[in-house]
């Protein structure tokens, strides 16, 4: 399956005696919005760090956009975008200056940077504040800007690590519209989230439990397979096996 945007096979990472990611295998198709769920410490961030070439796998393999994450790191970095859990823009620079910086880093010409910067300011409605410092923008705007900048160099795969935590519901919805727009252009999106309603927006999702993938599939198939009403219930069922979860058939 070389056509997969992300192909992970037996990916493992240990830190000393602790196994953060334990023989994980999954595939993500091009243009898919893939949800990556899991409790804190389940190994999501470690997995993403390996997929973005920040961390070397202990064993197993991962191929992203056709490049092996352990061997072709340089080529890999050109074709992926990444928006970290923490804020990835420079707050003392203006939106345009951030665009110029990242455009330069990804080797765009000044002309391209200017064009894309104009388009981006217009699309995000940031023209009025383009000359203000990022620190003065509302948090939701910043996240949208950060996402757009992660897409600036037209990556084939983009990794979003909890992009919407702390964002209000309206902005979250707008944020997801940006995600769909990117996916419709053929960009593969891997997104981690804590919001279960967002999980339902994903084409497919996986839930990591203690370094392993506990469940993977579309939301419909997962609900059927595990006999739960919502992804929220499925999550609790997987993460805390002892907890009582109402089944889909039972009255609520």
């Amino acid at each position, binding site marked *: 399956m070389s056509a997969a945007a992300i192909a992970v096979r037996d990916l493992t990472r240990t830190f000393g005696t602790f196994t953060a990611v334990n023989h994980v295998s999954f595939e993500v198709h091009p243009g898919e919005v893939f949800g990556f769920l899991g409790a804190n410490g389940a190994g999501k961030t470690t997995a993403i760090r390996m997929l973005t*070439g920040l961390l070397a796998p202990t064993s197993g393999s991962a191929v992203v956009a056709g490049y092996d994450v352990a061997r072709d790191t340089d080529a890999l970095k050109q074709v992926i975008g*990444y928006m970290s*859990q923490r804020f990835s823009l420079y707050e*003392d620079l203006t939106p345009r*200056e951030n665009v110029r910086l990242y455009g330069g*880093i990804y080797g765009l010409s*000044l002309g391209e940077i200017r064009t894309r910067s104009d388009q981006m300011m217009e699309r995000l409605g940031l023209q009025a504040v383009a000359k203000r410092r990022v620190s003065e923008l509302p948090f939701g705007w910043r996240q949208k800007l950060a996402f757009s900048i992660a897409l600036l160099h037209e990556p084939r795969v983009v990794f979003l690590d909890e992009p919407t935590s702390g964002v209000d519901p309206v902005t979250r919805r707008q944020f997801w519209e940006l995600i769909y727009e990117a996916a419709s252009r053929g960009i593969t999106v891997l997104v981690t989230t804590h919001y279960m309603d967002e999980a339902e927006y994903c084409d497919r999702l996986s839930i990591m439990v203690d370094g392993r993938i506990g469940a993977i599939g579309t939301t419909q198939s997962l609900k059927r397979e595990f006999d739960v009403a919502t992804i929220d219930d499925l999550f609790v069922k997987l993460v805390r096996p002892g907890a009582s979860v109402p089944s889909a058939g039972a009255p609520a």
Partner: protein
Amino acid sequence: MSALRGLLVKETFHILRDRRTLLVLLALPVVQVVLFGYAIRTDVNSVRLAIVDPSPDAVTMNLRNRFAGTGVFEVVADVRRLADVEPLFQTGAAQVALVFDETFAEDVRRGGTAHLQVITDATDPNSGGLLQAYTQALIDDYRRSLTPPASRIVIVPQVQMRFNPTRASSNLFVPGLMAFVLTIVSALMTAISLTREKETGTMEALLVSPLRPWEIIVGKVTPYLVIGFVGALGILVEARLVFGVPTRGSVMLLLAEVLLYILVSLSFGVLVSARTSSQRVAMMAAMLTTMLPNILLSGFIFPLESMPQPLQIMSNIVAGRWFVTILRSIMLKGAGIELLWRETLILGVMAAVLLVASTRSLRERLDL
């Protein structure tokens, strides 16, 4: 290269927008040198002078007036017997005593050997040495002014350094101070810069990007090199104007060496920054690892020659030690590169090693 240029622009903007920090970075070196300089130099102003004149006379009055006329000395006691100044020294009421021989005036008039004793409180070797030198210069002036020139008058100041018979010169001191201040300011600047990005999370964005570790390091160091250099120029001007330290050698060579030394210090800061994860830790680490070695082992205050062998060996890894030698040689002795190539080479190698090590630790964090 456009990636690197983008980084440089960004770093420059960071620096320029943080006005307060920029001001601190530029003013700190100059202010520190003044503060330290005066603190240690205790400054030749309002020096408390005691005069022991057993037989006051027009001749002794002439010399006494010369001291009073400088505006530097303040006569706190005018006594007849040497024994009377002893308690003044012990309480610190007097810093310098001018003790005329009983037959001083007579001897001067006769053209014989006149005796004048100068006693200096040298509890603080730096100020003691300075007072000593200043007093001696005044007496020399006086001696030269005596007419007719044919006169064979010899005044022998019997120097007696109280409490601390060793003395250090202030010309030696200011270059050392410059090295000290430059090290700390430079190392601190870069120590904070990488850790700040780690704290805010932008570091990850840079690491995920196609930027190479060396580009990140160069992007960090270059703008601060400019700032450090501007600060250093301030210190050099200050050394000349405020402390009167001459620059006898080539100014170009001096500036080149200063630039090289700032590079070494900045590189050290970057290494600290690459190996720590928070700004606070980086700052503490940079302070501790630059401050103490540069005070103790650079030859800045304590002469290296008088140290035990193991400390002398340890001092070799303190970059400031080589820089202090370079500064003193160029500024005071007028030495050229032919005498300083060894020290220069050592600093160059240190900069290279530190930069390579920082690049490697950035790569290690990537864990590739």
